[in-house]
């Protein structure tokens, strides 16, 4: 229920409020009514129970990994 699944956007239809996302090789249509930000193919969404609840910021994911590299190389 609390299971969130990240998916890569492959198609967006704003007027009908859905996007097709691909997760682990499986494509699924999800509702995007809760997403205010712009969406284009290639974006990543977090999907809960058929509804996207947030857009994933890949830059932040990259920064997080870089921070680890810094921490791991310190000392």
């Amino acid at each position: 229920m609390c299971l969130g699944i990240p998916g890569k956007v492959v198609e967006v239809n704003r007027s009908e409020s859905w996007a097709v996302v691909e997760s682990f090789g499986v494509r699924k249509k999800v509702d995007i009514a809760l997403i205010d930000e712009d969406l284009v193919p290639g974006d990543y969404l977090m999907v809960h129970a058929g509804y996207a609840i947030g857009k994933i910021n890949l830059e932040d994911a990259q920064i997080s990994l870089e921070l680890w590299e810094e921490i791991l190389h310190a000392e």
Partner: protein
Amino acid sequence: MLNKLRDPELGKRILAKLVPLAQEVAGHLGRPAIFMEVCGTHTMAIARSGLRSLLAGSLELRSGPGCPVCVTSQGDIDRVIALAAARHDLVIGTFGDMMRVPGTNSSLEQERARGARVEIFYSPAEAVTFAAGHPQDEVVFLGVGFETTAPAVALSVAAASSRGLENYAVLSFHKTVPLVLENLLSDPELKIDGLLLPGHVCTVTGRRAFDFVATKYNVPAVVAGFEPVDLMKAVYLLLKQVAGGRAETVNGYPRLVREEGNNKAKEIMREYFEPVNVQWRGFGEVPQSGLALRDSFSFYDAAVRFPVDVAESPPPRGCACGDVLKGKIVSSDCPLFARKCTPLQPVGPCMVSTEGACAAYYQYEWPKAEV
């Protein structure tokens, strides 16, 4: 790039940093630090990653009230089972986890075997589609979940309304996380050194909604993601706070969680639901922590349209699910664990739901060979 967050090599290197830090903190405290997660998906992710056993001796990870099925009160479980039993003309729609949760005398699964109509849906949107395709049936969707699920269920009511469906209703058992954490943190018996906050609940509520954990209760908190590297990062950030004697609510999941959260989701939740007092397993009544459909949507409210009168019952005899949810014990401390209570013959909900602490502990961490 998201795959990198599951990279075992990176995980091992981080762990090599984490263990000495945990040992240092344990040295200061004179015991291992205790961190609690409050999200069913964290329960599963921690169990699956083996993090608990990798840190054993220097850090203890416990589960809290994070599994929506598990925290549903015995009375609410009995209520939906009674509805399914009494009204074979209704179709009860539910997430799969709820099927086998034992009520006082029965379960949804048992009622289905006796002729009740129970359908499992992955999404409330599917339940609306089902209602549209079966106009002769009345569909009651069982809304169980926190801030991650409540907006989706609100949108399902919106969809039913805009499609002019008169055969769709919601039985809302929805709950919100911040108030139960207030209840938990106010308990003088609780001994925890930090909280891993639920990343997807925070995606909706925003980080700021959990500032009180640090400011009011002086407990360090980190919003945590769900990949192994995310979890280790959150544990690392908590350990750093404990080591430094600080308490802040830190966002360890910035790729999804914003300060304010998802405003659209919050608006939709507010539009459709109002806060009400609700019973939680293990906690009793927590004021204003439940979500009921507003009066203006009473046409879609199964509690109004199909009322059932069921008194609150005590939990199953011997079941310590309530203490597990409060972090007072770990699953294996329960005398029923792996003896009378197993995933095949569960006594309480914590052993049923895949997100339940006992089920996760049984599947991934319990040394079965020794017993």
